[in-house]
């Protein structure tokens, strides 16, 4: 029996930071090319990480089973990323380097990421761009025909590659095309409209999954030699977020319940430039690329409850609060700082719009300086989107924005090889916790997803397969039978409740609790309260939810019910993590830990670790394991953007 690692071994290779990945690659065991096709690998999710991994592993010769929840792998939520992808190419000759991208990422993450992982990511960032260009990704180019870059999310160099405001779409279509190439070749078998509902562990190793065919309702067993999870983040625990409607925690949560540790779940990113909530009917929030902050200026009126039209408020009665508080970075401070500052102004009574939960993002002076055409060329699609949703013209009056949940830095714990503490379970992209620490820099999600998928997992999974001593097993194994029974039992139970409230009603209620008490600012009292409330909601869910329809059909209510049920369990883990971390860092702001000026105050002495939680039962406090973070290269300082 494979021994499940109880302690946390991050398996960081020895040697100087800049040589770790190279030497690790050399030291990895290789699978004989002739043997590769004897190995089966399951990849769940077809976003940037999953699509890239499935395609690349098939190219290497493995048999890949690829699963996605949508009707086509091309629809994974990576597609919605707008702004761009970072890479240390230094094409602009402005002083960028692998080392600088590495340093910026560790610092931006408020020193809660693992250095070695981040360094590797910075190294391979360059290969990603090469790969995507070769696939035909139509990145923006300058008149000389070379790739254009922009500075993004507060970076002081221009290292962001972009494809208009649709970078995620174009990169995903690239990964999807690689995946389709391999499907055509026979190396990848595609399973669309499948939702993973459990992980199967045999002899201590991840060996398969249970999925539900969303069209027929059939519950299926799939076996493999290794399982890769690339199922994205858990932002929809807040109900309202910029995530797609089907984005959920179920796949990773089920792995957690099978023994995989969940790391840093309280690290969630609230994105500063989203379209404000308009009413109770709101089903999701829409993000606008923060590239807007390159030219837009953020302000609120200096007077409280100022009801004048923004165009009627004279210049000297406007408070450009980011420029005021952070003169060095101004409107380009990192996401967490910008978000909190907006909340602070609104909470203090300076918010604008119907709900008073919005601030202005003003292009007036940029249009004056550069002309409307230049602004349109840069941001036309975003302005168009804003106008469609809000029905006002951002060329003639300021936009209104408010922060919204956007990305989750936490995720399943993985070692340097992207393998969880559960042998054979690999976790890629947003689903893992590895590279962004407590706050992700703009344009780094796409980089990490593709880096994990194209360049890391295909090698480290191979290394695992070359060494693993796998027992013979088939889908009749006890573990499969037990897992399937668990899945069907839970479905039957949900359908049998026939209560009086809709699934969405519960989801909305959970979301409000999480947003108020475990959102942009957290404190001990609120977190204690949240824990009670989440338990209460969960108990009511299992008594009073009305899940209509049958299990043997296309049943979208049943799908949502399962996801909400898992969010209701997961939320507790997130709250425990937020309560445990008594410091403020990155996206996690503990009101008890701030400077006199209201800035986040980190506590490196006591909290320089990654928390990895071990499941102990629903409603029971999970067990905390700490992975100490050692910084060999980067010097820890309090982030200051003044």
């Amino acid at each position, binding site marked *: 029996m494979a021994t499940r690692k109880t302690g946390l071994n991050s398996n960081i290779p020895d040697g100087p930071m800049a040589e770790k990945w190279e030497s690790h690659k050399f030291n990895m065991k290789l699978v004989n090319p002739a043997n590769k096709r004897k190995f089966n690998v399951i990849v769940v999710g077809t976003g940037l990480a999953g699509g890239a991994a499935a395609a690349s592993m098939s190219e290497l010769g493995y048999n890949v089973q690829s699963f996605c929840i949508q*009707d086509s792998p*091309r629809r994974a939520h990576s597609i919605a990323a707008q702004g761009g992808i970072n890479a240390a190419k230094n094409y602009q000759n402005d002083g960028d380097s692998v080392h600088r991208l590495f340093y910026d990422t560790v610092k931006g993450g408020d020193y809660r990421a693992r250095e070695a992982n981040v360094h590797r990511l910075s190294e391979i960032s360059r290969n990603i761009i090469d790969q*995507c260009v070769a*696939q*035909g990704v139509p990145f923006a180019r300058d008149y000389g025909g*070379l790739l254009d870059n922009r500075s993004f999310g507060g970076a002081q160099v221009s290292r962001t590659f972009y494809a208009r405001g649709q970078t995620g779409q174009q990169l995903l279509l690239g990964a999807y095309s*690689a995946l389709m190439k391999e499907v055509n070749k026979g190396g990848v078998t595609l399973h669309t409209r499948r939702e993973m509902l459990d992980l199967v562990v045999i002899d201590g190793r991840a060996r398969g999954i249970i999925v539900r065919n969303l069209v027929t309702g059939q519950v299926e067993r799939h076996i493999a030699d290794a399982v890769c999870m690339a199922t994205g983040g858990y932002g929809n625990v807040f109900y309202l977020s910029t995530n797609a409607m089907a984005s959920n925690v179920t796949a990773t949560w089920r792995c957690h319940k099978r023994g995989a540790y969940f790391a840093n779940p309280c690290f969630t990113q609230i994105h500063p430039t989203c379209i404000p909530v308009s009413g109770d*009917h709101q*089903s999701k929030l829409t993000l606008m690329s923060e590239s807007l902050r390159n030219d837009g200026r953020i302000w609120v009126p200096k007077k409280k409850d100022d009801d004048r039209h923004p165009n009627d408020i004279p210049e000297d009665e406007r408070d450009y609060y980011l420029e005021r508080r952070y003169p060095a970075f101004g409107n380009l401070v990192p996401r967490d700082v910008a978000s909190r500052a907006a909340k602070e102004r609104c909470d203090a009574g300076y918010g604008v719009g119907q709900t008073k939960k919005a601030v202005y993002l003003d292009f007036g002076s940029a249009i004056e300086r550069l002309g409307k055409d230049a602004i349109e060329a840069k941001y036309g699609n975003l302005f168009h989107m804003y106008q469609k949703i809000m029905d006002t013209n951002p060329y003639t009056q300021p936009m209104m924005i408010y922060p919204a949940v956007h990305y989750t830095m936490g995720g399943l714990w993985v070692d340097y090889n992207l393998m969880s503490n559960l042998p054979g379970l690999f976790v890629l992209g947003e689903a893992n916790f590895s590279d962004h620490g407590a706050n992700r820099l703009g344009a780094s999600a796409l980089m990490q997803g593709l880096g994990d998928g194209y360049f890391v997992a295909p090698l480290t999974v191979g290394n695992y397969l070359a060494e693993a001593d796998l027992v013979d097993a088939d889908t009749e194994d006890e573990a499969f039978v037990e897992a399937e029974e668990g899945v069907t039992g839970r479905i039957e139970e949900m359908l049998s409740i026939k209560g009086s409230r809709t699934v969405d009603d519960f989801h909305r209620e959970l979301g409000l609790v999480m947003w108020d008490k475990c959102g942009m600012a957290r404190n001990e009292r609120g977190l204690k309260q949240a824990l009670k409330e989440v338990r209460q909601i969960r108990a009511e869910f299992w008594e009073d939810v*009305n899940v209509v329809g049958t299990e043997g059909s296309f049943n979208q209510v049943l799908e949502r019910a399962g996801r909400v049920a898992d969010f209701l369990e997961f939320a507790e883990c997130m709250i425990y993590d937020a309560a445990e971390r008594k410091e403020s860092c990155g996206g996690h702001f503990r009101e008890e830990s701030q400077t006199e000026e209201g800035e986040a105050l980190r506590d490196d002495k006591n909290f320089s670790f990654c928390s990895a939680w071990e499941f102990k039962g629903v409603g029971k406090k999970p067990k905390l394991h700490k992975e100490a973070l050692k910084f060999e290269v980067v010097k820890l300082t309090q982030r200051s953007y003044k």
Partner: protein
Amino acid sequence: MGKKITLTLRVWRQQNSQAEGQFATYKVTDIDTDMSFLEMLDVVNAGIELQSGDPIAFDHDCREGICGMCGAVVNGQAHGPDRGTTLCQLHMRHFSDGDTLVIEPFRSRAFPVVKDIAVDRGAFDRVIQAGGYVSVRTGQAPDAHAVPIAKEAADKAFDAAACIGCGACVAACPNASAMLFVSAKVSHLNLLPQGQPQKDSRVFNMVNQMDSEGFGNCSNEYECEAACPKEISVQNIARMNRQYLKAAIKNEG
């Protein structure tokens, strides 16, 4: 601030691909005109759920107009009346109090109905499998700056690559042709230097796959372009036809 309107919906209900379908009528009140079309359907479905009925099935995911998952024909128009807009980005302010909305799936022989408004667009994936890629393996790529690409070519390729694969073009076409989708995909790669080595086999194989999926022929109605939420141009079709002809001749020769 939105106002409240009352609508009559006539919605296509069909249990599965085998079943017969029919229209069902729903009267809905208090629809806030700031809602999106899909949020309006959410409200209708919540009402149905509370009466333990069978909610209307419809595909959706990003609700930002980019994933291509949503889509319905509303009063005869794919994605509804607002040009250049997906159903999820269509807001109820485009409708008036008292309107009747007829809501149907994207119909085509190649898109079997999954349930109600949701259809199976797997045919599009199979067209891409036939050649919608550059055969470069991970790790083989030269430096990204090795081949400069004229900005115009890159921009044109981008225009074609903006297709979200929703299938509105097929639904809008009287012949249920997929020419706009396929030509956009072919153009994206065939306009770029990276796409050149496989340009003939790409167009040839993708068009043949399209035909075998049961999509209809193009008779230059241009309804596809009008319905496309990303305003993909029919010029792509003309370009593809030229390339296909050349490729077919080469293939015979």
